[in-house]
């Protein structure tokens, strides 16, 4: 009797094993070859005008505005093919506007036609909960990137430190110190860049993305008045500023 039970058990295990392996073969298509690459190039603009790093520009409500530090996280970057399938290109990047290199990212990808890009602005909750100490200094999520709020164990999604002057020139006595540091799980949002692109095997393809600084201060989130709303560290008292900034920032990213 025991022997029969053993035989039945072995038979069932074998059946399950065969079934599982068959399922894998049937359901899992061969992994696509990452035989091409896409190069994302972020470019600063002030409305319709190209903008250089450190350039002084005039934006809503202030005569002069100059960024001194500007980094932002984008995560779960995916290319969406015509059939709706998504190809994850990169889990997380940290763009640094202070150099062209810091605004250029190349990812391996399968060749083919893509309808659009999906980009998570900021960090999703899983990435936002990562321990920065566990990453090498050059990794986007490392503490060395100066984007982590260690006291709250979360990341700033965007960090802009800047100077502005409402009526005069930067450098005179009336400079406004600007610091927009939004970062909270609820700010994370995936946006679509609905510009199709085609990747050819063995050939990198450029995909240019505009970052329109003027929209930071006047976008779908509303007008951000630099003189009266110069800073937010996503604390309860300045949370509305951070929220408004994030809405505007998402609208400021568009394909060129």
């Amino acid at each position, binding site marked *: 009797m025991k022997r029969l039970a053993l035989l039945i058990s072995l038979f069932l295990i074998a059946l399950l094993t065969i079934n599982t392996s068959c399922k894998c073969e049937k359901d899992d298509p061969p992994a696509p070859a990452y035989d091409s690459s896409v190069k994302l190039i972020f470019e600063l603009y002030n409305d319709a005008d190209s903008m250089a790093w450190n350039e002084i520009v005039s934006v809503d409500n202030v005569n002069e505005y100059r960024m001194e530090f500007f980094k932002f996280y984008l995560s779960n970057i995916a290319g969406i093919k015509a059939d709706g399938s998504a190809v994850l290109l990169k889990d997380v990047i940290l763009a640094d506007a202070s150099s062209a290199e810091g605004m250029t990212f190349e990812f391996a990808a399968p060749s083919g036609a893509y309808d659009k890009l999906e980009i998570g602005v900021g960090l999703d909750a899983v990435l936002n909960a990562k321990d920065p100490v566990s990453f090498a200094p050059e990794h986007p999520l490392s503490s060395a990137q100066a984007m982590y709020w260690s006291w709250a164990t979360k990341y700033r999604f965007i960090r802009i430190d800047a100077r502005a002057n409402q009526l005069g020139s930067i450098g005179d006595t009336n400079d406004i110190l600007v610091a927009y540091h939004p970062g*909270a799980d609820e700010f994370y949002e995936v946006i679509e860049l609905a510009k199709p692109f085609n990747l050819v095997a063995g050939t990198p393809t450029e995909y240019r993305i505009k970052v329109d600084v003027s929209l930071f201060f006047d976008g779908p989130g509303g007008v951000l008045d630099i003189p009266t709303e110069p800073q937010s560290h996503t604390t309860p008292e300045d949370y509305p500023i951070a929220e408004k900034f994030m809405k505007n920032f998402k609208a400021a990213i568009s394909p060129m």
Partner: protein
Amino acid sequence: MKALRLIVLLAFFGACQNEGEYQLDIPENVEPFLIPEDNKLSQAKVDLGRSLFYEKGLSLDSSVSCGSCHIQQFAFADTARVSRGFQGDTGFRNSSSLTNVAFQTAFFRDGGVFSLERAVHPPVLGEFEMNMNLMDMLDRLNANPSYPQAFKNAFNSEIDNKGIVQALASFQRTLLSFNSPYDKFMAGDSLALKGSQKRGLQLFRSDRLNCAKCHAEPLFIDNKMHNIGLYESYREYGRGRVTLKEEDFGKFRTPTLRNIEVSFPYMHDGSIKTLEEVLEFYKTGGFHHPNKSVEMRSIELTENEKADLIAFLHALTDNAFLTDSRFSSPKE
């Protein structure tokens, strides 16, 4: 102590770690804390953590160390209302005692950090505290003749950021204080507490005063956040600063009462100087605040009862802990 149970933590020493287990003495009536699997205690780590704790080179201008604001004789707290850090800058909260800090499940006054390892960076990187940056910190430690070997002993590796936080966390896990008159009394020495202190203990445990509800024995913490109605309108948000939720405004982590006699001033902002004044505050039941704990209510307390209660609180002072050479600066 007779009642001490020897907890031998046998670290899982793999090929990457040096041998040298570290023994923690935790009383039988205290539930041991958890140690992360990837940071088991070893003597070498604790030694390294101790050196780093007192290393002023971890601050940008080499002026302050962890030990500057967490002073052993004051139960690893600071007598300043708000400690001074880099270039004399001040933060906005009173420095917490590190007494038995390993038993906490959340760290800092607002509980924004949930592991000792992750509690290392806020003061080290904080611009009003040590204002250090990680790359400079690694360079400095590498330039010091003793640290490369100490890291090799502790982690069998070169100096890195992870090792720094693990060593500092390891040292802090050894800051155990269970040798006060109260502990001796609880272990069976009926003479360890004087009459006034025994009466104070009874008062402390009484439903009327309700102290033990949050300052629960034997650690005298509850690992929770409370708004005690210290202010009608708080100047800062407490737990709400981290969660951004209105219901958390004005809530702070319950601090331990062990060594409370020497860890003055009191409250999250160091606004109350003496235990007498603290009791006077609790007598009032605190100010009205929408988030105030339901446990806070005004209480009747006679002068004699107040004296007894304070006498009991003094019985929580562990002089051996405050002078233990294992916890002092290795340079002294």
